[in-house]
């Protein structure tokens, strides 16, 4: 603009619009981002560096142990001995069948495998919001599938060889306990929640007493109760299977937690819905089944999934009554002298941790996805 004529009696007029200046270098790109988010003042910088060092250290240790120094093949502990050896993966691969199915006879492994696949085939569309035939699908999963799974797993029908539940183990037991818990506890929990909100004092009293009792005691004592006390309460001569006892305990326990989740949903339904249903002449049960519960249950899907995550993690406790779930099988494998190496324990924990994390993290992502989806237009 040096050629602007001053003194010609003409005021200053800008001929063209100036291009905006680029932002200062300290604000753009990675360095700018880092300056604003990582290095604000000395204390903040120190904190960032400390966290960075911590994260790098942990990541490096895991990578180094699990991948770089790991042993991938071998027949016994000889392969995994040495000062420079990391994770001992053959320990996992040789026992993989056991970790999946426990001591289920090897030639019958196709049965639990079929049940796994059918379960996945039924659950996947059930959890996909856009998939059609939700009602038929739910009916199949909650009514037909348990019967199918029971027949397939325990055998004794249609020429299938009976397999005692004592032989079941590993991930199979973990999934059986978790799935039974959720399938049995959902209807029971709905009933309890309705009972707790009932206006009939006796029904309400029993519902509250039941819920608060089971929520007040640890699952481990419930398992002890189911194993040692329950048989005493049954007519003499009746004996129930060890796994079934645990399933009864787990179902009652999770029903109490489920009831509280469902109650939250019931409370979130505006009174107008009840009044509207009554104005249409619906009695209690039609009102609940047709109007209130469908809305309430939809609202609490994230809560139900969270209860299920808790239940899935709690299945590890069945090991206290000598049922070998996934973690229990891995723990018992540590005692195997064929694989006793310094790295065995860490390998086992790493594998168990990865498997549990994948299951639980997957479920919690799903619950968050549903939550976000329901958040649209469903705010009361």
């Amino acid at each position, binding site marked *: 603009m040096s050629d602007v004529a001053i003194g010609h009696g003409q005021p200053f007029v800008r001929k063209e619009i100036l291009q905006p200046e680029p932002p200062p270098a300290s604000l753009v790109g990675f360095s700018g981002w880092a300056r604003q988010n990582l290095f604000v003042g000395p204390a903040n910088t120190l904190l960032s560096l400390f966290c960075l060092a911590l994260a790098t250290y942990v990541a490096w240790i895991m990578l180094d142990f699990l991948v770089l120094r790991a042993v991938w093949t071998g027949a016994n502990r000889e392969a995994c001995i040495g000062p420079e050896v990391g994770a001992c993966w053959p320990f996992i691969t040789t026992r993989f069948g056991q970790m999946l199915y426990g001591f289920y006879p090897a030639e019958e492994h196709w049965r639990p495998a079929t049940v796994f696949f059918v379960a996945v085939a039924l659950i996947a569309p059930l959890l996909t919001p856009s998939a059609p035939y939700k009602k038929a699908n739910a009916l199949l999963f909650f009514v037909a599938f348990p019967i199918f799974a029971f027949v397939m797993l325990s055998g004794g029908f249609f020429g299938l060889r009976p397999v005692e539940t004592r032989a079941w183990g590993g991930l199979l037991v973990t999934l059986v306990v978790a799935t039974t818990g959720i399938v049995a506890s959902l209807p029971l929990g709905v009933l309890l929640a309705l009972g707790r909100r009932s206006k009939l004092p006796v029904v309400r009293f029993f519902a509250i007493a039941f819920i608060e009792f089971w929520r007040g005691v640890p699952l481990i004592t419930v398992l002890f*109760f189911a194993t040692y006390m329950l048989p005493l309460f049954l007519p003499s001569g009746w004996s129930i299977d060890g796994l079934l006892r645990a399933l009864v305990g787990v179902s009652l326990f999770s029903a109490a937690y489920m009831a509280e989740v469902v109650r939250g949903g019931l409370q979130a339904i505006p009174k107008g819905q009840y009044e509207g249903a009554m104005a249409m002449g619906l009695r209690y049960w039609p009102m609940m089944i047709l109007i209130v519960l469908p809305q309430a249950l939809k609202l609490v899907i994230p809560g139900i999934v969270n209860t299920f995550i808790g239940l899935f993690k709690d299945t590890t406790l069945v090991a206290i009554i000598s049922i070998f779930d996934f973690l229990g099988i891995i723990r018992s494998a540590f005692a195997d002298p064929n694989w006793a190496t310094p790295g065995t324990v860490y390998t086992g*924990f790493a594998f168990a941790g990865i498997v549990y994390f994948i299951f639980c993290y997957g479920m919690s992502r799903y619950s968050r996805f549903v939550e976000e989806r329901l958040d649209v237009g469903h705010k009361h």
Partner: protein
Amino acid sequence: MAITHEGPAPAARPPSTSSIWNDARFRGNVAQVVVVVVVALALGAMVWNAQENLSNQRIASGFGFLDQTAGFGLNQTLIPYSESSSYGRALLVAILNTLLVAVVGIVFATILGFLVGVGRLSKNWMVRKVCTVYVEVTRNLPLLFHILFWYLAVLAAMPAARNSYSIFGEVFLNNRGVYIPRIVFGEGSLVGFVALGIAIVGAIALNRWSTARREKTGQQFPVFWTSVAMLVALPLIGFALVGFPLTIETPVLRGFNFVGGSRLLPEFAALVVALSIYTGGFIAEIVRAGIKAVSHGQSEAAASLGLKPSLSTRLVVIPQAMRVMIPPLTSQYLNLTKNSSLAAFIGYPELVQVFAGTTLNQTGQAIEIIAITMGCYLVISLVTSLFMNWYNRRVALIER
């Protein structure tokens, strides 16, 4: 059943010609009677069966066994206990051990949870990410996994006593546990404790007085620093008067083991670490949600009143966040207490391990023992939730 009750009282209705089954109140009463009968029948059958089974299997019943000699030792006792003590005494020891783990775990879990929860809201990206990873990893692994990991993979892998890890030569870590220094109070220490008691009472009184004065006149009084000075100085003077009868006993390696100091069982250490880390992840989420629930306008208003960030956090944000946080925090504390029962897996002598484990095996009285065990947890849960409800009412928002 429930809703159909609403409406005018039946007495006010005109006499109805329709069946009595259409009367909602009548149907409600029938339903209640049916429930009572079913529950009573079920309970009766259970009691009947239990008596039958007990007499068939020749199992004694009643609580008389609590006075019998236990005959087993316990490796951590907060009150005097020996093998010749009774089962009742063993129960008491076990309850105290459970409470010890629960209290220590709650303290550490709360500290960890608050740090991580605040860290997840930090403006620093690195801190935020590290805290997020911590929360996701701890919450998505079973608690038993945490406990076994710390017990079998970390503490069991500690070196033998001779090669212990030492922290400043005072604290020693080895595969037999954690050895920490112990303060031994000699004769005359009572004076010091009395002084400490006076200091605590004085601090509370000072706080009340200064609050009353502030509300009346608006004058501030440096309560915090005065209290700290009092709490430090008075016991010091008290102990100085009797010539400092305190000795700090440091653990010393003698032969193959340490002598002196206090020893924490590896089971105890693993349990406390695992419970704190696991529950800390859940508390972090509660803290984060609580702080996010306080609207941004509150901290802006505090800033416009001239409060500096630290004061606005302490006086404006945290008190309001606490209201949101207390109910879920209570259930986490209860969960931690109940989860301490997982100690049975690693053999820490708490309620389930000692009572539902050893005592049940020795006496075989399943009904009484499991009822007592469940009852203890129920009482602990009830007392904790009563206390937290009381605290909740104190801090709850008083609406117009």
